[in-house]
C-alpha cells in the first residue's frame, strides 16, 4: 500500500503492553478503509484455531470493531502467528491472566481489557 492510500487514523489511546510489541506493523498495515471490504470477506479457515477460542462471535466482533477503530492498524497475518506463539498449548484463561499480570492491556472505548482478548476480537471482526 502506498503512503497516499493511508488515511489518518487516531493512534490507539492506550496500549499498556503495546500492540506494537506483538508486531502490529505500521508499514503495509490495513487501515479502516481497507477494513470495509475485509468485513465482507468470506469465511477464512486460516484463523479457525484462534477464532475457536472465542465463545461468542457477536460480542467479539462488537469489541473488535472498537479495537480496530482505536488502533487503526492491524494485520491478521502478522498478529495471528504471534498470538499462536503467545497462546501455545495453554488454555485462554491462563493467557488472559498472564496479560493482566504483565500489564498487557488495551483500552477500547474506555474499557480496560486484556490484549489477547482485544486482538482475538479484532481478528474476529476482520475475518468473518
Amino acid at each position: 500500500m502506498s503512503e497516499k492510500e493511508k488515511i489518518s487514523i487516531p493512534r490507539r489511546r492506550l496500549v499498556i503492553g503495546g500492540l506494537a510489541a506483538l508486531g502490529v506493523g505500521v508499514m503495509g498495515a490495513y487501515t479502516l478503509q481497507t477494513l470495509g471490504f475485509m468485513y465482507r470477506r468470506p469465511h477464512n479457515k486460516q484463523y479457525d484455531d484462534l477464532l475457536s477460542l472465542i465463545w461468542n462471535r457477536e460480542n467479539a466482533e462488537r469489541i473488535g470493531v472498537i479495537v480496530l477503530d482505536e488502533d487503526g492498524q492491524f494485520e491478521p497475518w502478522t498478529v495471528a502467528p504471534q498470538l499462536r506463539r503467545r497462546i501455545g498449548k495453554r488454555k485462554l484463561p491462563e493467557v488472559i491472566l498472564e496479560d493482566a499480570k504483565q500489564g498487557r492491556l488495551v483500552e477500547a472505548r474506555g474499557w480496560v481489557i486484556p490484549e489477547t482478548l482485544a486482538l482475538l476480537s479484532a481478528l474476529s471482526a476482520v475475518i468473518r
Partner: protein
Amino acid sequence: MPAFLDARSVPADTVLETDLAIVGGGPAGISLALALAGAPFKVTLLESGGLTFDDKTQALYAGTQTGVPYLALNGSRLRYFGGSSNHWGGWTRPLDESDFQKRDWLPYSGWPFARKEIEAYFPRAQELVEAGPFLYDETMVFSDELGRTIPLGDGGVYTSYFQFSKWKDNVDDLPTHFGQRYAEDLKRTPNLNVMLHANITGLRLAPNAKTLDHLDIAVLGGGSLKLKAKHAVLACGAIENARLLLASNDVMKTGVGNQNDMVGRFFADHPIPRDTATMVLFDGAIPSFYLAAQTAHGAIFRKTFSPTEEFKRKNMVLGSLTTVENSVSLDATGRAMVAATADALGIDGRNAKAFSLGCGMEMAPDPDRRLTLTTEKDALGLPRLKLHMTIADSDFAHYRDTMKELGRQLLLAKSGLIRLNQASRKEWLSVMDWGSHHLGTTRMHADPKNGVVDANQQVHGVANLFVAGSSVFPTYGSSNPTMNLIALTLRLGDHIKSLFA
C-alpha cells in the same frame, strides 16, 4: 458559666489586651483554644460570626474568580462560630507518609518535616473530630466484620478506609459541628475568652515589621476595637488567612509575610469528579461497606481504593481515594465487554453488575493557582479576593493511571473489570465537583522564598504571628484535611506553650 463576649456590646475604640489571640472559631481555632485550656496565659478567640448563620456576615466572604470553574468563594465555607464544620461531611483520614516527602518528579512538593512529626497528635485530633478509634487501614484486622473485601490481584491499588466524624453514635447523625459541640467546654476554660461578632480587618505590625503590634477588629453595623496580643494565630481558613495577610499592607506594602510574593499562591482543593470509571464485578455482589458508611467497632467506616505508596513512587502519580457510588446499567458495548472478558477468563459473568466510581484526587502544587486582592471592598472596607483556579491535565492523567491499575488488579483476581469514563479535559471538567477543602495559600517552607510560614507555622519574618489550618499544607495529599489540620494545630499549641514557658 460565663457566656461568650459579643464585640457589638464593647464600647467603640476600646483597646483590649491578651497574651494570645486566635483569629477564627472553626475547627482549627477551637482545637487550639481547647489545647491551651489551663495554660498559664490568657487566650482570646475572636470569631467573625455569631452562633448561627447570618447573611450579612456570610457576604463578607464573597469574591470573584477566573480560570477553571470553581465553587463560589462565599458558597464553599461558612462564616460563623464553628466555621465550615457547620456543613462539613465528616470524612476523615490521615495523610500518607509520601504526602510529606519531597518527590523529585513533583515540583514544589514536600513538607519541612516527615509525617511522624504530627503522628503523636493524631489520637487527640481523632478524638476532637469524634471519629472513633484511630483504625483506618488497620481495619483489615477485623475485615470480616466489615464484609467481604473486593478481591484485587497483586498490584498498586489497595483497599483503604475512611472513618467518619460522628457527633452522636449513629451513622445518620451529623458530623461534629465544632461550634455547637465545644461551646460549653470553651466557656468552662478559665484562661479563655471567646468574642463573637469580632471581625479582624487588619494585622498591624510594629514599624520595624518584625512583630505584630495589634489586631484591628471591626463590627458589622459600625464600631471598631483593637486587640493588643503578645502572639496571634490566624485560623480563618485557607482563603481568609491569605486575605488578611495580603490586605494588611500598611507597614509591609505587599502584605504581611508576602515579601516574596508567596501569600495566596498554591491554592488547592480536592477535585471530586463524578463517574470517573465504571467498575464491573462479575459476581455482582458489592459488600455494603463500599457503597455507604457502616458502623463497626465504635467507628463508622467506608471502604475505598487508594494507590499504594510504592505505586505512587514508581509510577509518579498523585494520591487519590476512589469511592464506589451507585449501580449503573451498561450499554450493548459494555455488556459485550463484560461477557467476553468473563468468557475469556473462564468464569461466569451472567450476574455481573456495574458501579459508578467517584474520587477525591490530589492536585499538583501550582503557584499560579492563586488568590489576589481586588479593588472591590466588603462591608467592612476589606478588599475582596479573586481566585484564579487551574487544574493540570496531568492531574487527571495520574488518576487515570491509578484506575487502569485497579482494572488490571480486578482482572488478575478474576473479580471484574473497569471502564475509564473520562478521557479528554473537556470530559473531566464536565463531571467536576470540588471537596471545598481549601489548602495551600500560606504554605509551610523552611525557606522564606518558598513559603509563607516556617516549620513552626510562624510567618517568616514576623516573630509573634502564626498561621493554623490547611493553608499551611505545602503538598496536599488526597485525604480530607480537617483531622490532619487539627493534628498540626495541636502541635502548634505545644510550640506556643513553649514560647510562654
